[in-house]
Every structure is written in structure tokens, then in C-alpha cells.
């Protein structure tokens, strides 16, 4: 199992790397889905099957499909790929990459100190999660609902196609 964990982790990292450096939007999106699947597997391995399911259903399912729709609407083609090629000149990415590496270095240095304990893989499933959500976190769930409502209103207003826009 340990082998599965680490190999999945490597897959997640590689897929994510391909997303970040990708040229073609749809390809990048597919790599992102791969990465999300990998993370879902990790969730499962860590003993969180429900989280794994959510990761696939909502993240890889709903949210990514939204992306696909938009990319299709924008009809990104070969020209855009060439443009991406030009935008990704070393002068653009070198500085940010170094900075991100410094950040990562800091984190890894902190995490290497250890002492965090082990994940035993004991399962905390949908039942416990549900109880927690609807007892002590009930208020938070309500808040999440409001959050979604706000986003809905926003998307409705911003995405609305108005008659006068067509002129």
C-alpha cells in the first residue's frame, strides 16, 4: 500500500507539473483531472473514502466540466497554442519559478522537522463526516450555502447576455 501511496503521489506531481507548463488548454485540463484522480486515490488510501468520492464527483466532475465548457466557448485553437509558446518565454517564468522554489524550500524545510505523527489509515467515513457537518458545523454549512447563493447571483448577473449587448 505504501508503494501505491508514493507512486500515486508522483503521478499527482507530474500531472500537475504538466498542467502548469502546458501549452494546450484542453490537454492541461485533462492532466488536471488526472492529478485530481490521483489525489482522490490518496484520500482513499488515507482512510477518507467519502472525500475521495467528493473529489471525483465535484472537482473532477462538476468544476472541470465547467472549465471544458468555457474553453469550448472560447474555441481555443492552434493559434492560441502558439501564443502560449510565446508567452512562456524564460524571462516570464524564471523569476516566478525561482520564487516558488524558495517558497517550497521553506515549506519542505519546515515539514522535514517532522513530529507530525502518522496517518494510520483508519477510516473516517461518510457517517462521521455527516454527523460532524450537521451538528457542530451546522452553522458553517449554512454559511457555505450563502456563499454558493452569492456566487450564483454573481454568475447570473455577469454571465447574462443582454439584448443591448448584441448590437
Amino acid at each position, binding site marked *: 500500500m505504501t508503494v501505491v501511496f508514493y507512486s500515486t503521489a508522483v503521478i499527482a506531481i507530474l500531472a500537475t507539473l504538466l498542467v502548469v507548463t502546458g501549452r494546450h488548454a484542453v490537454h492541461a485540463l485533462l492532466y488536471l483531472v488526472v492529478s485530481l484522480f490521483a489525489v482522490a486515490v490518496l484520500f482513499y488510501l488515507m482512510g477518507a473514502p467519502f472525500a475521495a468520492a467528493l473529489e471525483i464527483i465535484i472537482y473532477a466532475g462538476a468544476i472541470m466540466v465547467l472549465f471544458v465548457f468555457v474553453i469550448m466557448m472560447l474555441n481555443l485553437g492552434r493559434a492560441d497554442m502558439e501564443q502560449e509558446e510565446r508567452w512562456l518565454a524564460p524571462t516570464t517564468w524564471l523569476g516566478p519559478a525561482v520564487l*516558488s522554489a524558495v517558497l517550497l524550500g521553506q515549506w519542505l524545510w519546515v515539514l522535514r522537522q517532522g513530529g507530525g505523527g502518522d496517518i494510520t489509515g483508519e477510516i473516517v467515513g461518510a457517517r462521521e463526516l455527516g454527523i460532524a457537518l450537521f451538528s457542530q458545523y451546522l452553522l458553517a454549512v449554512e454559511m457555505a450555502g450563502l456563499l454558493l447563493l452569492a456566487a450564483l447571483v454573481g454568475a447570473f448577473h455577469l454571465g447574462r447576455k443582454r439584448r443591448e449587448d448584441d448590437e
Partner: protein
Amino acid sequence: MELLLWLIPLLPLAGFLVLAVAGARLPKAGVAVVGAGSVGLAALTAALLAALFYNAGSDPVIARLGPWFRAGDLSADFTLYLDQLAVIMTLVITGVGFLIHAFSTEFMADEADYRRYFAYLNLFVAAMLMLVLADNLVLLFLGWEGVGLCSYLLIGYWHRDPANGYAARKAFVVTRIGDVALLLGLFLLFVELGEFSIQPLLAGAPLYFESGAARMELIAFLILGGAVGKSAQLPLQVWLPDAMAGPSPVSALIHAATMVTAGVYLIARLHPLFELAPVAQMMVALVGLATLLVAAWAALSQRDIKRILAYSTISQIGYMFLALGVGAWGAAIFHLVTHAFFKALLFLGAGRVIEHMHHEHDIFRMGGLRRVMPFTFGVFLAGAASLAAVPWLTAGFYSKDQILLAAAGAPELGTLLFAGGVIGALMTAFYSFRLVFTVFFGEPVTQEREHAGWRIQAPLALLGVLSIAGGLIPLPLEQVFPDHHASHALGLVLLAAGVALAGIALAWWTHGRRRPTGETANWPLWRRGLDRWQASGLGFDAVYGVLVETPFNTTARALRGEIVDRAVALVIAVNQGLNALTARLQNGRIRHYALGVVLGVLALLIPVVWL
């Protein structure tokens, strides 16, 4: 008495509020009545209060209006405190202030924005009164800020000319540098003594600090920094001569009764702190000495009538600092009072002259005004005599004499301080009468005769009388200041007197006696040469030129003003440069903004990980 005390600053404040809010509906006469009347009433109140105060044996009066605020251990109330020092300051501010207001009602009658002028003036007086009457340092700082704000508003208002924008900025930057120092000093004081109320603070300081303790010296130095900025002393004197473009009565108010004397008052008020900080106190004396010499020297070569007076203000305040520095607190206040009289008079008189000459400021384009402006000449002469410290006749002589004697008696560097003061006195007498002779003597440049109503004549006359006789007014300060033993050597007195007379004589020689002569073409050569030599002031002109004008102009050109001027320009430039730099980073690119976010995270993360 408590109520009366509060009335004094509140009356001009009320005047300001009325003018600011309802002034638009008032006719000019109404504005004049409110503007001058409020200060006049304050002056009357002050006089009444002073009478009561002295009758009651000069015991301090404390008037608490109510609490102001409290933050932790720190609290400040709206409380005024009247003692012998505050009484004198109040009388001078309201009295001289009222005379200037009264003068302005007629002098400024043609000004389009009469109302705002008086509103600012009233606010100015109110802020200054708050400053001198404050019982705690926070209230004092309120007055301090108010005075600074008013001066900035006035400069900003009158400087329509964009070229003068620099002057306004300069005044702003320079006085702010002083204010930063002052505020730091006050907070340091608070942290050490846990008190903002002045009297307990002054009483507590000697118990808490050893004389010469490092913290005490630091505090005194910071306070001195504030005083130096506000009172235009070296090295922060540069803003004052440039801040002259306002109308003359404003200059009179800034230079005589308010604003620049704030620094002198502050140090005098906090003198026990300076007594505990001998190094800082010596610094006060040296700053004063350097300032009085440099400013007097600068005044020697000015052509603009108001700039001469401006430099003379800096120089005279240098004398006050000198007195403070040698512990002659009473002498400093005495000179502050007489200076208020004659400097207000001189500025108002200069305003009359400038107006008469149709806004000509250059004294060398004037002349002979004695004949056409006899009244102005009379009072101006009284003021100039007092400034020049004409011996035994004028108020200025008595106050300056006290300072010089005190300097001579100083335990350290007494000779140096005295000698510097005497040289300054010589220059003072010279430049004041150079001004008088050039402007009022010789051939008249105009035949137009002056006309002045009583609202102009009465204040000038009164100030003239005070400039002469003001030295006889007793200024009891024994409850506030410790006794000061000054030297009383008759020789020194005579020396000071003689120097003043010599300066006047010199001025007569170089600028009074010499006037364009008649036809000389058919004189023999020797006679022409003699005449030219005589006409050139027996060579004094050349000496004058070599000793004063040339070096001053050269240094001025070389340094474009003064070194400090450069430093100020540097402060401005640095801030503007940083403005440009930071603004360039604000380039609109999300990616760059996101870099900022990551940098911020790192800025918090790295110290956590590595410290």
C-alpha cells in the same frame, strides 16, 4: 476666573467659526467687527484676568473645562493653566494680535477675500493662545499643530504663483521635521515619567532624572528640535524668509506675536528639563548664537524690505535662544515681549511703505519717504531704533542688554557668547538703519502723500509708544523662573550701548549721508577723486561689499540658498523618488501583484523559520 480664562482662547475661536460658517452673509463691516472684535474682547478679558491674577498674589490659576481623553495610563484634559509666564504671553498675543487685527480692518479693506483672511487670523490667535495656556502637553501640541496648520493654509492660500509652491512645501517639510522630533520627545518623556500634565511633570523630573542623564539629554534635544523648527532657528531657519509672500499684517502676526515665538515659549515653559540637561541647554545657547549671527549677516545684504525684517526676526529669536541657553529665562521672555512690539510695528510699517510704493519691495527703489509719509516714518523710526537697541531710550535696548549681560555671566563660554552677541548687535543696528536711511532719506521718489485713517494710525502709534517705553513695563516672573545672576558690569553695558550707536553711525555713513551729488564734471581731478571717495562712503562701501555682500552672494549662489535648503530639497526629492519608485511597481499586472503576495508570505515565513 476659571471661566474668564477659558474665554480667552474661545473668543477668537468663536470668531473663526462665525466667519467660517456664517461669514458669507456678513457685510465687510460685520466681518471686521467679528474678526477684530473677538480678539479685542479676548484682549480685554486677558487684561481683566491679569488684574485679578496679580491682585490675588500671582497664584497659578487652573481652569478645567472637562476631560478630553484617556488611553491607558495616559490622560489629557481640557485644562488651562495660568501663571506669571502665561499671563505675559497671553497679554502679548491678544494685545499685539488685536492691534494687528485693527490695523488690518482698514489696511486690507480692498482685499477680495476679507472674510477668509480674518477667519485664518482668528484661528491663528486661538491656536497660539491654546499653546501658551495649555496645562498638559497634549493640549500644547494641539496649539502647536494648529499654529503650523494655519501658517501652511496662509502660505498655501496666498501663493497663487506656482513658483512659490516650493516655498510652501519647504515651510511644510522643515517645520514637520521639527514636529516629528518634538512628538518623539514628548512621548519619551511620557514613558519615563508617566505624565502629560506639565506642572507635575516638571516637578517630577528632578526626582526621576539625574542631571545630565542620557535619556534626559535625549528628550531635551528632541524638544529643542521641535522648537528650532517652529522658531526658525539654525539649521531649520530656511522656511521663514520664503514664507513672506503673505500680506504684511500676516507676517506681523507670524513674526511678532505668534508662531515663531512658540519655540521660545516651549523651552521657557519646560526649563526645568533643560536645567537637568546641561549639554542640551548649552546647545540651545550655541544654536541661538549661530542663528543670530548668520541671520544678521544675511540681513545685511538683502534688498527686499520684508526679507530684511524676516532675517532680523530669525536673528532676534536667536538672541532669545541665547538667553534661554544661558539660563536667563526671564531675559528671553522680556526680549520676546519687546520684540513683539517693535517687530509688529516694523512689519505693519513696511506694509504701509510697500502699499504706498505700489507693491515695490526693493528698498533701493525707494527713498525720501520721510517727507511724504511723516507719520509712518515716525513710528517706523521708533521701531527700528528699538530693534537697533538705541541705548537707554528704547525697549529693545533694555531687553537685549539683559541678554548680553546674562551671556557674559554664563559659566561656560561666557566670553564667546557675549562677543557674538555684541557683534550681532552691531550688525543689527547697521541693517536696521541701513533700511531706515535708504527708504526714508534722500530724494523723494514720489510726491504722493500718505493718507491713513485712525484704524491704521492708532495701532501704529500705540506700538510705537510700546517700542520705546515697553522696556519699563515690569515683568514679574519670579514664581516661574529661578533667579538668574547676570553680570552687571557697567563696562559691558557701555560697550553694548556703544556698539549699537556705532552700527547706526556706520549705516549713516554708508547709506544715509551719501546721495547722488550734483554736477562734478568741471571739478579738478583731486576734488573729483575725493568726492568719489567720500561718496563711496570713505571706502566703507568697498569694505561692505567685500565683507558682506560678495561672500554672502557667493555662498548663496554656490549653495543655492543654504546647505539646509539642500537638505530640505533632498528630503522632498527622496520622498518623491520613493513615490515614483513605489508607483512604478503599481503597474497593473496581476502577475506582478501576485509576486507581492508571495513575497509577503515569505516575509512572514522566513523570520518564523529562521529566528
